[in-house]
């Protein structure tokens, strides 16, 4: 194992009763890479994400996360909030905002969740709390700027458009100061113009913030233009991996997609 692999997934199997959701999955992600996982519906992509973030606990196999401190850490057996503290941020397929809070508050919660605090200090706004709040506010404003939502900082999250919600979720994830950002179908429900903006944003997250990106996406055009490497999942197993060009030419991939939906194959071709 080399130190520049941020994620190493070895022989991971995840079952729900008799249903095998992930079957002996092996994959890895290099630091600073934009990696995509594609596959037909029900292939296990979101299950993989949930396993990587500690929401699901696979029965077999090992998932290793390597932070900047170059100490390998096992994800399995860790609670989701611990995984987040270690430096793994994520967004959700159906975007999950704290919808009654403003956009600003959404991001701020992410920014302050990893700072230590005392209840009494937090309550009485002691010097440490005030310093922390100032920092969190600065981080929040910087990130709102970064994703282009500065103008909408005081808007209730629920009244944002789909595209803006995606951006907000990315900002909230980035606020936790992650090393890798997992994006679960970031372009779902957005229009072509928003898609283009998202692709630019995702690339900027990697280039300007140095955060590795792991991406699930159905929109082939977006994936092929964005990802540097891809894994293809089908029925819980990795059936192919390689660069976009290699994936396009892979017969197993074409068959997997033919088996599910014709127009997705068209997109692939």
């Amino acid at each position, binding site marked *: 194992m080399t130190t520049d692999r941020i994620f190493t997934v070895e022989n991971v199997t995840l079952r729900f009763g008799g249903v095998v959701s992930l079957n002996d999955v092996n994959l890895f992600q290099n630091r600073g890479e934009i990696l995509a996982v594609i596959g037909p519906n029900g292939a296990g992509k*979101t299950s993989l994400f949930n396993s990587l973030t500690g929401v699901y606990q696979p029965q077999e196999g090992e998932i290793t996360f390597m932070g900047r401190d170059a100490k390998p850490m096992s994800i399995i057996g860790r609670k989701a909030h611990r995984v987040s503290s270690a430096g793994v941020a994520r967004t959700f397929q159906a975007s999950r905002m704290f919808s009654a809070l403003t956009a600003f508050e959404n991001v701020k919660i992410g920014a302050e969740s990893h700072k230590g605090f005392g209840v009494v200090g937090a309550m009485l706004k002691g010097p440490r709390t005030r310093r922390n709040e100032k920092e969190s506010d600065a981080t929040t404003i910087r990130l709102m700027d970064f994703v282009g939502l500065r103008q909408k900082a005081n808007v209730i999250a629920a009244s944002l458009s789909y595209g803006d919600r995606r951006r907000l979720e990315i900002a909230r994830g980035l606020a936790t100061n992650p090393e890798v950002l997992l994006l679960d179908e970031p372009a779902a429900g957005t229009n072509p113009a928003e898609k283009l903006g998202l692709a630019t944003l995702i690339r900027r997250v990697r280039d300007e913030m140095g955060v590795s990106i792991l991406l699930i996406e159905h929109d082939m055009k977006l994936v092929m233009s964005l990802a540097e490497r891809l894994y293809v999942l089908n029925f819980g197993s990795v059936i192919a991996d390689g660069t976009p060009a290699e994936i396009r030419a892979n017969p197993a991939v074409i068959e997997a997609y033919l088996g599910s939906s014709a127009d997705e194959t068209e997109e692939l071709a």
Partner: protein
Amino acid sequence: MKAFVKRPFVSHLLTSIGAMAIFELMTGPPGSSTTPTAGFTGSFGERASFFGLFATYRFVVFLALAVIVSGVWTLWQSRGSVIKHGVNTGLARPRAAWQLKPVRTGFFLALFIFALFLPHLETDPYWQSVMVEEIAVYVLLALGLNVVVGFAGLLDLGFVAFYAVGAYVTAWVTGALPTPAPFGIHLNAFFAIPIAIALVMIFGVLIGLPTLRLRGDYLAIVTLGFGEIVTIFANNQYGITGGSEGTNAIPHFSIHLWFIHYVWGLAPVPYYYLTLAFVVVFIIVFSLLEHSRVGRAWTAIREDEVAAESIGINPLKYKVMAFAIGAASAGFAGVVTAGQTIFVNPQSFTLPVSINILALVIFGGMGSIAGVVVGAVLIQTVSMYLLHSPPAGYQSSDLYIYLGAALVLMMIFRPAGLIPSRRRRREIGMAEAGEGHMDEVLTGDTP
């Protein structure tokens, strides 16, 4: 004919008359085995006064009420969406006047000053003791439950357990239990305050750690169970708690510090001021908490636990914190009850008390400190008034009919409570509009 009945006003009127007929039966005189129909005929035919204006029969009064109800109903149907819509879009607009901070602070100050003078305005001994035992104590309980239910969104049906523990700890440290007091020192009730609050908070953590891993309905059932366990324990363990006979005499509060000597006696007013001071402290502490990062984390967990966890919030930690902090004010309420009534028995800590506290919180507005204070004062005052000077035909057990009806009406017309919290109101608005997730399972690829 059918078309006539289907007209909105007619159908509303008929439904209202039906509902009022049932209401009449519920509030009417009971029947007996010798005259089985007395309950029925009496419910409708008994003499009554028309809202104190002139003498008539019960059915006339209820018919009038039915007309009013159907009128309101029809109005609500035609204008309701406008009213509700106004509520929901109001969120994005600037705060309404009563939501501005100076207005709120001023409101609290005015309420506080009024509360300061209240015992001198109302000198009836019944009301003076009600102010402490039934109003101030319930304000404390509602404030505490509001942290758990309103801020953190945890449905706790056994909140009375913390109240009971606070009271019994007071009895314990003052040496009023069959169990010997800790280290054999009989403290006076005043020093029981910090000890009871600390122990109740520890109790909250101990109950919280295993139960708060559950969500929603499961948590409600388990807390219900814990509430019952505490009451039954107190009832059955004669050797420890004195059982159903209750404790021995608990000494009154007293202070003996250097030159300050003060003893709280039998009169309720000194207790009133002691409790009022703590109510103010708890209001300040809880509202500071609400607006700190702890409050934000609670909101995040309440809205979407999975998302909160994904950004590094430990839900269990914050939930346990909510339990312990909410328990603190209930614990203090227990100390006051124990200190003032000099005597504690398990019958004061039954399930209906838990439900009553929850009703106060829901009525006042979950998550809104101003709301639960006003709601608790209002409901407790009305129910104590009804108990003290019941109108003709009112039996004390009828209280829950009216309370239930008030809650139902509240849920229809002001679902976020009397004085709603901004965040809660948005959540309810969005849930009605079908947005936001109440408690949906982690979605996979399923469309």
